[in-house]
């Protein structure tokens, strides 16, 4: 069975112009009101607003209904978590307001989407560091392959409030975390094709030390978008289309979104439809998603 990415949208520090991925210092928040009801957004943290915005954007032009909601987040709702913690510490555990606690769980975004979309279907949140997005992506494909539906919303989001920045600045990390690494990316994944479809050719997890071997057999047309934190592509003859993005916990999702733009651009401008590999992961394991314009 084939699976397709039919719509995609991000709030990302990367923008895509004329076949190039441009890295900006940080994200630019959109005018949420154009899509979201201001009353809905009252008391919502940035991660929720971003996640709802990209989700609603990909569903806006999607006439079909979705069968489930699959979310990923590395750190979850850190600003509401902090807000409740701070209150709890300052008030010595007395007379606390519940709202930030209610909105602090990792599945707040998926739950809120469930309510707004009145969707009673499959609903899950993956929160697994560098694999938060990939796990959610894989789950979306498995839901389709296993016949649990024909269309799923996949959203991954993270926020980096000042407090997280402050703390991370004090930590001596083996792999530095990109502090601008916040934003949201949404996709609709479907088993049916539409005019904007991009086909998911393959997805897998391989050992990080075997990435070179894996890429060796690629044909020279293929493009690689690398958001892996430690693996660096060697500029070999058969890899002349290399893009390396800086890394954060959500950049694998940005990488796939950039791959979607790239494949669209190459098809429209040059009529070419090469394989695009989006590579990410951690020191031990690498995730590879391969896509191609239909």
């Amino acid at each position, binding site marked *: 069975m084939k699976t397709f990415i039919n719509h995609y949208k991000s709030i990302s520090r990367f923008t895509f112009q004329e076949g190039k991925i441009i890295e900006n210092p940080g994200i630019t928040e959109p005018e949420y009101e154009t899509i979201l009801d201001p009353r809905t957004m009252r008391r919502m943290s940035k991660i929720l607003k971003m996640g709802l915005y990209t989700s609603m954007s990909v569903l806006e032009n999607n006439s079909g209904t979705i069968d489930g909601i699959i979310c990923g987040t590395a750190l979850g709702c850190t600003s509401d978590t902090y807000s409740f913690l701070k209150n709890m510490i300052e008030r010595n555990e007395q007379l606390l307001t519940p709202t930030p606690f209610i909105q602090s*769980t990792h599945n707040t975004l998926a*739950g809120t989407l*469930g309510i707004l*979309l009145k969707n009673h*279907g499959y609903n899950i949140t993956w929160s697994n560091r560098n694999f938060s997005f990939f*796990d959610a992506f894989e789950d979306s494909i498995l839901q389709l392959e*296993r016949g649990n539906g024909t269309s799923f919303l996949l959203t991954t989001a993270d926020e980096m409030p000042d407090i997280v920045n402050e703390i991370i600045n004090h930590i001596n990390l083996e792999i530095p975390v990109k502090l601008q690494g916040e934003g949201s990316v949404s996709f609709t994944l479907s088993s049916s094709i539409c005019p904007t479809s991009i086909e998911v050719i393959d997805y897998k997890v391989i050992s990080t030390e075997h990435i070179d071997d894996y890429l060796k057999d690629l044909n020279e047309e293929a493009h690689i978008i690398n958001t892996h934190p430690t693996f660096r592509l060697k500029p070999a003859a058969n890899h002349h289309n290399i893009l390396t993005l800086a890394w954060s916990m959500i950049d694998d999702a940005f990488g796939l979104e950039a791959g979607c733009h790239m494949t669209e651009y190459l098809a429209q401008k040059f009529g070419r439809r090469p394989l695009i590999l989006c590579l990410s992961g951690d020191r031990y394991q690498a995730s590879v998603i391969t896509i191609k314009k239909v």
Partner: protein
Amino acid sequence: MIRQRVVATGMGIISALGNGVEANRDALIHNRHGISDISVLPTQQSGILPAGEIKLTNHRLQSLSGLTSGNIPRTILLSAIAIKEALEQSKPEIKNTDLYYATTVGGISLSEDLIAQHLKSQEPDYDGFIYHDCGAGTAILANHFSLKGRRYAISTACSSSANSIGRSALDIIHGKCRYAIAGGGDALCRFTLNGFNSLMILDKQLCSPMDQNRRGLNLGEGAAFLVLESESNALERGAEILAYVSGFGNANDSHHQTASSDDGIGAQLAMKKALESAALSPDEISYINAHGTGTLNNDKSEGLAVQSIFDTVPPIASTKSFTGHTLAASGSVEAVFSILAIQNNEIYPTLRFKNPIEGLLFSTFSSTRQHEVHHVLSNSFGFGGNCSSLIFSKK
């Protein structure tokens, strides 16, 4: 393709009832709960809000788990202890074993100290923050047990570990996974204790789930894990089959971030999907391990959902009256209890039950009893409307 059946060949648990499967069963059959005044966790709520606290310090948990280096969060220590027990029983091939871990508290038990010190401009051990996220548990546990396969982390609040068991079972059915360690853990911490308290759904006395006079829930802590594999794999290597994982349903209530809908539509759908996937009719279920938190809202909503599915409701009870609500761990803690019920033909009660809930057509029971058990339905519902149901079966 012949549909693979999924079996549990190992299980491990640590809860307020004790460390290990045997200690937990002993408490269950003797109707002995583990809810008490909080004495290990430093909190203002000590002496006010009772909880299913494990009376072991982090230091003691470190040596029990073997995770002695660094300041590993309690959630992960508890999980390591339960995984160790499950692995010792099943002895799967480690190199072909995937980890499906679930948590919602994660490392916040450390972060809450760290941020308190940070706010007071004391110099905390900032490095502890690398354990804050849910994925930290997956990473540390996979490395600790030298697991080389896929490693997942799910966080759907109180249904988290039900989802990790359900998803891993499906991966085994579809030939994607050889062995799975599936379950979850959550430790008591000030964050969740005060969070639930701010929602005014904690009982200051021992909780009375599924009772007309219920006053709320008691929090608990714990971890539980199953080792799962296909039936053919277990038979081939001669592993003892404890029970079958025969059904799984996941649905969303789509009603409110923390409250259940009046008719429990999410719960209904989750139970329905679980029954369908197990190809069972409701009258084949011998026992229901209810989500049964003890809140006014949950128990009524779940009850209405149950009676909308079951013409005759089988014996049903909430073992949260023993353990407290162990949040992300509750699905796997109750999976272990469900399997014990199947193995021993006994059903575990709702302690302290006196009065049936008005408006419900069924009630629960207050002490462990002998009962022929073939299929157990276990419910886990959470914040965000996340509802999951699992079915465990004898042969």
